[in-house]
């Protein structure tokens, strides 16, 4: 039982981040620079503009020993400033 616990803690986690809101140049840069600041890797990313609404979904790999909360906090703050609705989904290990 304990062994399994240890193993789990050394596995990387994934979160899926989505952001939606009014489009303008620079949104991708601001959002991706936060991920880069944390040193996390974007595994997959899709972004599109529909009717001038910016829609982004990206899968981010979080190292096992890193905290998701700090990223969430910073990203929420940024997206709030940019006028984007942001959501975080835990996407497994």
């Amino acid at each position, binding site marked *: 039982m304990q062994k399994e616990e240890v193993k789990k803690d050394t596995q990387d986690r994934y979160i899926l981040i989505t952001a939606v809101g009014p489009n303008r140049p620079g949104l991708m840069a601001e959002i991706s620079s936060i991920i880069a600041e944390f040193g996390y890797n974007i*595994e*997959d990313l899709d972004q599109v*503009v529909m009717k001038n609404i910016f829609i982004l979904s990206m899968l981010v790999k979080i190292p096992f020993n890193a905290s998701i909360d700090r990223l969430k906090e910073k990203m929420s703050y940024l997206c709030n400033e940019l006028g984007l609705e942001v959501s975080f989904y835990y996407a497994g290990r």
Partner: protein
Amino acid sequence: MNLDLRCHFTMLEDNKMVITVVGTDRPGIVANVTGVLARFHVNILKTRASTIFSDLFVIILAVDTSTSLIRRDVLMNILKKSCEDVGLAVAIESFQSYKYDKKVIVFDLDGTLIEQEVIDELAKAAGVGEEVKKITKMAMEGKINYLEALKARVRLLKGLPVSVLEKIKSSIIINPGVKELTLKLKELGFKIGIITGSFDFISNYIGKLIGADYVFCNKLIIEDGYLTGEVEGEITSPEAKLNAIKKIAKELGIGLESCVAIGDGANDLFMIENVGLGIGYKPKLIVKERAHGLINTDDIRILLALMGCIDLKKDIVKRLEKYDKNV
């Protein structure tokens, strides 16, 4: 008035372009590229980014430059430079050209498909290495034209036995990934061409090896087993290389926007500039500045990803396998 309207219209059309960036997967790639676009107020319309071939990361960005603060050619050069600085391969194509399926790909030989400059190897074998280098330099500086330079260099090779050619042939090093790349391109239905100012004995040999459909090169004249010091052929200048690819396109009934060209030197410049997608492979400065794309790593296979020939099937299989594991 009419003309004005038309100009305006083409400007609008020309505002869209597609940027493909490929590199070894690591944090910060998306931030690098989108950072440049943001700095100059370029609007990203669509992004697709994913890890492919397990260790490469590919980003495809469709952008609208109508809000850009700088001219498009300046933007392209900044993008190329910033990608090069961090070891990323990049291709930037106008939407006008991007929407055409690519059907033909032509390669320069020396420095692109193979490592060596064949004329230098021949000169070394003939013991005229220094003289040949001097002429090459003069041609580069524009003191003599390409044709004269070629003739003068070949003249110095007079009397070289054919056995030496065989020896050079066996010492030629094909660049990493070339065989896999050309095999894949064949599978995808591409016509492959070699357009080179190099010589027939090596061009045809490499052509056969990679299954080239077209080989344009110069011919060394041989008499009684020795080089006569004469050369036949017309691939001597940037114009000649462009004409060769035009010939291929015409024969296949396609436009230049369906062609891809890869080279490294100044004489590849016209063909690289005028095809739909012209890529500099470890290019000289002048090519770097005017090519649509750059590959600076050893691995020419990256070209596949730059051209958008990403194996999506494999990608989907991998994804579904991952999905099974996760459920």
